[in-house]
């Protein structure tokens, strides 16, 4: 009975073990609400909770299993839970040129000129779905379908921190310099992650983002 593979619904999410310590829980559109609800319980069996794309991942302490407590928390109704955070951030971006080498090709793919492409990317208010890949790297939800684009066939060996990028249906911002496969359309000087700050990540799951062309 450890794997519950029923179809996901708000009250009965499906879950599967990835190892003896990692449990993936399918949460669909309720990911951030379920994440907030689970986090607020401070369950003693749970070492970490990681929201991602339509699922929440629970890391159990060594030796801990799915107690009745955790099981109830996973299936508890979410009605009435407050929405998370929601701080609005304005991120100033230099689009195109050396800061956004993939912008011309992506604009052509979308059937737009560069100015229209930039307007389209900056017109939307995005929400932070989750952080991953690098500390503080936000996966932003809300990208216009016309701007969806696959990752590069061959990743770049070095993408600079602050690069604003497109990967599939997400737009994101590189928080550290390093290898990366997303398409680069611009750059921001905003510091996405600083481990010395009280809040190390500039953007948190549930926050909202507007890009402002410089």
């Amino acid at each position, binding site marked *: 009975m450890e794997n519950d593979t029923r179809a996901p619904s708000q009250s009965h999410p499906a879950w599967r073990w990835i190892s003896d310590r*990692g449990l993936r829980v399918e949460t669909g559109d309720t990911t951030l609400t379920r994440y907030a609800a689970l986090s607020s319980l401070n369950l003693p069996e749970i070492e*970490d909770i990681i*929201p991602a794309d339509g699922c929440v*991942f629970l890391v159990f302490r060594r030796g801990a299993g799915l107690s009745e407590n955790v099981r109830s928390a996973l299936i508890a109704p979410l009605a009435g839970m407050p929405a998370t955070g929601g701080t609005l951030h304005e991120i100033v971006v230099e689009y195109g040129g050396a800061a956004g080498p993939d912008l011309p090709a992506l604009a052509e793919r979308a059937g737009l000129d560069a100015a229209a492409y930039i307007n389209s990317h900056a017109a939307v208010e995005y929400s932070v779905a*989750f952080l*991953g890949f*690098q500390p503080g790297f936000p996966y932003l939800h809300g990208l216009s379908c016309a701007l969806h684009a696959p990752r590069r066939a061959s990743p770049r060996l070095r993408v600079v921190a602050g690069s604003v990028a497109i990967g599939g249906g997400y737009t994101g911002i590189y928080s550290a310099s390093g290898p990366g496969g997303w398409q680069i359309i611009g750059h921001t000087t905003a510091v996405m992650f600083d481990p010395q700050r009280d809040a190390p990540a500039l953007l*948190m799951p549930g926050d909202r983002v507007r890009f402002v062309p410089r």
Partner: protein
Amino acid sequence: MIEVLHAGLCDLVMDQGRPGWGALGVPVGGAADPAALAAANRLVGNDATAAGLEITLKGPGLRFPLGCVVALAGARFAATRSSGAAIVWGETVVLAAGETLNLEQAETGCRCWLALRGGLAVPPVMGSRSTFLPAGFGGYRGRALRAGDVLASSATAGAVRLLRARVPAIEWDAPLRVVAGPQAGQFDDAGLLAFFAGNYRVEAASDRRGLRLGGPAVTHARAELPSQGVLPGAVQVPPDGRPIVLGWDGPVTGGYPVIAGVIAADMAKLAQLRPGDAVRFATIELERARPLAIEQWEIEELT
């Protein structure tokens, strides 16, 4: 206090890691075998959570100007000290003022942990003194040690006790035990057979972020999935079919199918695999794996 005379391949300040920051994209990290570092700490009279050094494949030359009480746990390295006295793994070792300790090649395995009395006094970052190399923070200035670095240790009180650790045995010839992953159903029979019957080898391009494996390609239907949470030990299969076992500093989310996850009890063995080592996998039930996960080394008085 430690002076680094020459650096090893990758000497990193580590403690038990920084759990609880996964939602920010920060992995737990910390010593690749936290129980081994905890045992070394107890041998020198520290709290299990004190910071020590994780030493990989080839060790550093260290000088202890004020003398020090140290202990080593994990893989055995060829080692000498300036006094000529023996260096025993898993025991309290008292170094005189000005003594040097030279750790050379690992004789078996890949990593060992050096604890010293008081623990390394680097500033904690996000609640831990562990180095996180991929983003360059924590530990000693966010990087591996270099010649000329000087590391302070915290002051301690109380008498030194001479202790010995009973080292848990690792079954080197046994396969790594795994739980079948959430996407195991996406792999066809040929892919599953390749993985579970295959003999793999650890490739040179392996580090604390992940162990890359060479061997039979694992075929699967879909190359990319929505990003999902992962943890160290998760075996991801990218489009080229070559499995990667995520390591201690690996990402907290991933978009490749996960075929299996190495159980917590076998992560200490994963920490000792070096490039060229053979790897096989075998499944184990969750209920059998869990009780194996709580590991604490026994410590006894040295008589």
